[in-house]
């Protein structure tokens, strides 16, 4: 009797949430635990990851009462390894959604968790051994660079002089630069300079000032992250340089999406590498357990141009990023 009322309550909650079909009801007599391990909010993008993970946790637990989501943040690779050990020691994990700090260091510990039969979802940074994961969800860093470059080539008519600011030396940064330069190299556009500004607003401001001092003509600037773009814009405004036609970023930061929506002339587009991909991964993992939707495989989020027309889909006013 008790069980039945509980089941009815669950069912009505599910109907309210409007997300479940009869198939899910079968699975409701079992409780599932999904652990989510992500980096702590140490800069804009990871701040967004934490925000979206927490939002997805609330939404999932409201929609599927038999699923328990545990979000755990870690401030370094070693801390993440420890938190994995703690998570698997204190809970019986049905699934682990992990955005690894680094590929190599986390591969062993995640393999350990997987050996207990836990479903593994890897987000963004791949592990050194892809056979460990059941599901892989990531953005497309090469497309972030390539799509921006294609737009720029078109707008500049295939020629001009541009400068590039890159982030922290990592695979993510390398891939974006690779995607960008591959497209640019096929045009007559000349990349005057590429330097690291460590995805930092202050360093981007300083570097852009130096670029402006060094080159009398710059047609466009690409900062491979929107945080840096804000520093770039400040430097160009201060120098009152009219030659800079376009200043582009990437990642889909809230402030930059607002500029795109407002139809800014120098920043009319952005490309997403959305921190909300953690939410995509969590929902897909939940579907594996709550629904009859097999989710094994690789899922690559595209990086379509964000334009004034579609900007609303990429705009999360409550997110810190």
């Amino acid at each position, binding site marked *: 009797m008790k069980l039945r009322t509980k089941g009815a309550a669950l069912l009505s909650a599910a109907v309210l949430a409007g997300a479940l079909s009869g198939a899910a009801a079968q699975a409701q007599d079992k409780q599932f635990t999904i652990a989510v391990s992500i980096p*702590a*909010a*140490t*800069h*804009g993008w*990871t*701040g*967004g990851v*934490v*925000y979206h993970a927490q939002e997805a946790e609330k939404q999932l637990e409201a929609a599927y009462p038999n699923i328990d989501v545990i979000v755990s943040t870690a401030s370094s690779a070693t801390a993440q390894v420890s938190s994995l050990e703690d998570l698997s020691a204190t809970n019986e994990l049905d699934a682990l959604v992990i955005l690894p700090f680094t590929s190599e260091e986390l591969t062993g510990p995640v393999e350990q968790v997987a050996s207990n039969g836990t479903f593994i979802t890897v987000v963004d940074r791949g592990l050194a051994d892809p056979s460990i994961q059941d599901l892989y969800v990531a953005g497309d860093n090469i497309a972030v660079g390539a799509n921006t470059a294609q737009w720029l080539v078109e707008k500049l008519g295939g020629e001009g002089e541009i400068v590039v600011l*890159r982030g922290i*030396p990592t695979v993510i940064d390398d891939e974006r630069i690779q995607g960008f330069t591959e497209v640019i190299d096929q045009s007559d556009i000349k990349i005057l*300079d*590429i*330097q*690291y500004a460590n*995805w*930092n*607003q*202050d360093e981007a*401001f*300083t*570097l852009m*000032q*130096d*670029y402006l*001092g*060094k080159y009398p003509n710059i047609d466009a600037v690409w900062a491979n992250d929107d*945080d840096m773009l*804000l*520093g770039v814009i*400040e430097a160009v405004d*201060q*120098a009152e340089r009219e030659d800079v036609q376009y200043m582009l970023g990437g990642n889909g930061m*809230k*402030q930059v999406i607002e500029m795109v929506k407002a139809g800014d002339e120098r920043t009319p587009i952005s490309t997403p590498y959305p921190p909300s991909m953690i939410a995509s991964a969590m929902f897909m993992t939940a579907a594996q357990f709550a629904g009859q939707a097999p989710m094994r495989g690789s899922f690559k989020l595209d990086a379509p141009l964000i334009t004034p027309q579609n900007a609303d889909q990429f705009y999360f006013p409550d*997110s*810190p*990023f």
Partner: protein
Amino acid sequence: MSSAEIASLPESEGFKIRWGDLAPFIALGVIILLGTMINSNFMSANNLLNVITRSAFIAIIGVGATFVIATGGLDLSIGSMLAFVVGIMIMAMNALAPALGPWAIPAGAVVALVVGSLCGLLNGLIVTVGRIEPFIVTLGTMGIFRALITYMTDGGSLSIDRSLRSAYRPLYFGDFLGVPYPVIITLVIALLGAFILYRTKYGRRVTAVGSNSDVARFSGVHVGGVRTMAFVIQGFCVAVAAICYVPRLGAATPTTGQLWELQVITAVVIGGTLLRGGKAHIWGTVAGALILEVIANVMVLSDMVSEYLVAAVQGAIIIIAMLAHRFTSSR
């Protein structure tokens, strides 16, 4: 007391030419000469003004750090403290903006100075009353301040109210008779620092405590008080830097001021202040801050160094500058 004063007397009389004291300025000259040869744009008024204005933050914080280091202390928390003070200041300004309008800016600045000084006082009291090594204490507060700014921004960024932005912006970008305001503020802070350090009783006690705290104590100097005060001066300087920092980008993020403590300490040491204390050069610190900023600028302007190796060349130049310093001062 008297013995300590005598010990530091030659410091205050700068009439004799001492090559060691001039070393940072000579190094600065050499690097500027190098820059001129590498790229003709280096000497353009715009570029020079940019570089000098940028160095203001490190120079202003460096003046405070000169006091702390001269007493034999060390403050690793300054970068995080700057971010924290910037965060508090922006929140205060945004909260006051509807009531005070543009007057929220000076009100926020006062809040910043109070908060900065209190942060310094906290560091100082834990070091002196708690008798814990300043390295450990400020390593701890470094983490605390950094976590607080991350918490305040939710890991994202905290922006100043749009209505205040245009009124506040000129403090970084504007100038008085062609001299940018941050440069004027740096000069005022350095002059004040030099006056306190070289012309007041407190200043002489600073170097006395730094060169030998036991002797200073036996001479009747309140060592703890002198050290605590140095940390308060440091906190005040951080707040002044924060006031100049906010109008530039108008936002605080969890990466604001990251690793600035290392740049500041490097500037102070390049400037001729001894890391173990007892010898302080305010103007050397200012030159040190300029050296760091000019090196970074020359690296970007030159095409000779691969982007991957920039940091290595910067490190090498700093070490060479210090070696040159050692050879000139040992004469």
